[in-house]
């Protein structure tokens, strides 16, 4: 039994559940992206691809693959490359990768929000950072 894989799946499922629950209450945070960035620090690319595609499968809202979903799917792999090229400790690398990934996501998909809704972006990134550290702790615990 691979506890790390199960923990990875649970992290994605938890992120989806919390994101949808908060969304239903009017709080918009993209926790799944943060979860996948964290997973990029724990898994090799084939496992990461399964997690990313599973999340994209649940999140994809349209009958076709939207540019947002493509970018969303690419960011965890960018984090994976970030992990390979920069030898930061996970405690430091994960928050940096989440922050950069979220800023990149907003910059490309909704640059207007930097002008009109900066507090919402700050809330999203702050929530993602907190969730990222929680996911990191879960995966570390599963490794022991």
């Amino acid at each position, binding site marked *: 039994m691979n506890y790390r894989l199960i923990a990875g799946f649970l992290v994605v499922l938890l992120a989806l*559940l919390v994101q949808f629950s908060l969304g239903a209450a009017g709080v918009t945070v993209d926790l799944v992206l943060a979860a996948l960035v964290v997973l990029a620090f724990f898994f090799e690319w084939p496992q990461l691809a399964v997690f990313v595609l599973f999340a994209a499968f649940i999140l994809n809202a349209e009958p076709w693959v939207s540019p947002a979903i493509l970018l969303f799917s690419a960011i965890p792999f960018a984090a994976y490359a970030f992990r390979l090229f920069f030898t930061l400790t996970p405690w430091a690398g994960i928050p940096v990768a989440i922050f950069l990934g979220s800023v990149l996501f907003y910059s490309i998909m909704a640059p207007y929000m930097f002008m009109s809704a900066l507090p919402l972006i700050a809330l999203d990134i702050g929530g993602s950072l907190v969730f990222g550290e929680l996911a990191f702790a879960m995966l570390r615990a599963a490794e022991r």
Partner: protein
Amino acid sequence: MTPTRRPNLFIFGTLIVLLVVLIVFAPSVGWRLRALLTPSDVAPGTVASGVNASGAAALLTENDALKAQLAELQGIAAALPTSTQGFVRAMVYSRYPFGFKNELFVNAGSADGVATGSAVEYQGMLVGRVIDVWTHDATVETVFDQRFRLPVRIGSSGIDGLLTGGSYPYVASITPGTTVPTGSVIVSAAQGIPYGLPIGVVQATSTSPDRLFQQATISFPYNINGIETVLIVTH
């Protein structure tokens, strides 16, 4: 973090192919899974406590719709054009998954008479407008989207304002010094949208950050996340 286990490429390769096939050819399965993960209850604060939530929400919606009708009769009914539009009922099959947009995806498109800019209603209230149309699908930008803007009128005196979308939509550009009573109904007054569709009611007013205008926060009698069907105005 150094991964220690070498992944089984055959198993993960099969899973990757399976998920890609599902994403491309069976996205509706994902929507159903998503619906299972999404709570369907009404958000706190949208209905009075101590009563049946769905019943109270329906009553509040009806109340706002009646207020809108009253406002029309008192002051602006004379300006109402003779309406000849029809409606098509559409199912909301999915919602935009990320925080920076608030869009609904519905199962009616150009084949059903839906056009870009068409008004979208829920229980008689304007909830958004169509921004993209395909043969059998359409994308609806709701009033909770950051980009949504719509000229509106407030109350029986027809005070002009600009509905500004977002997580907490508000009416901007209200002339300073104008009295905007709390509870006044806000109705549509934009080209391409039927005149007088109720949107919500005034919750509170304040001075805009630039101190040039007044603005009003809005109370909505429905939960946008609970909407499953809408009516789209066809021309």
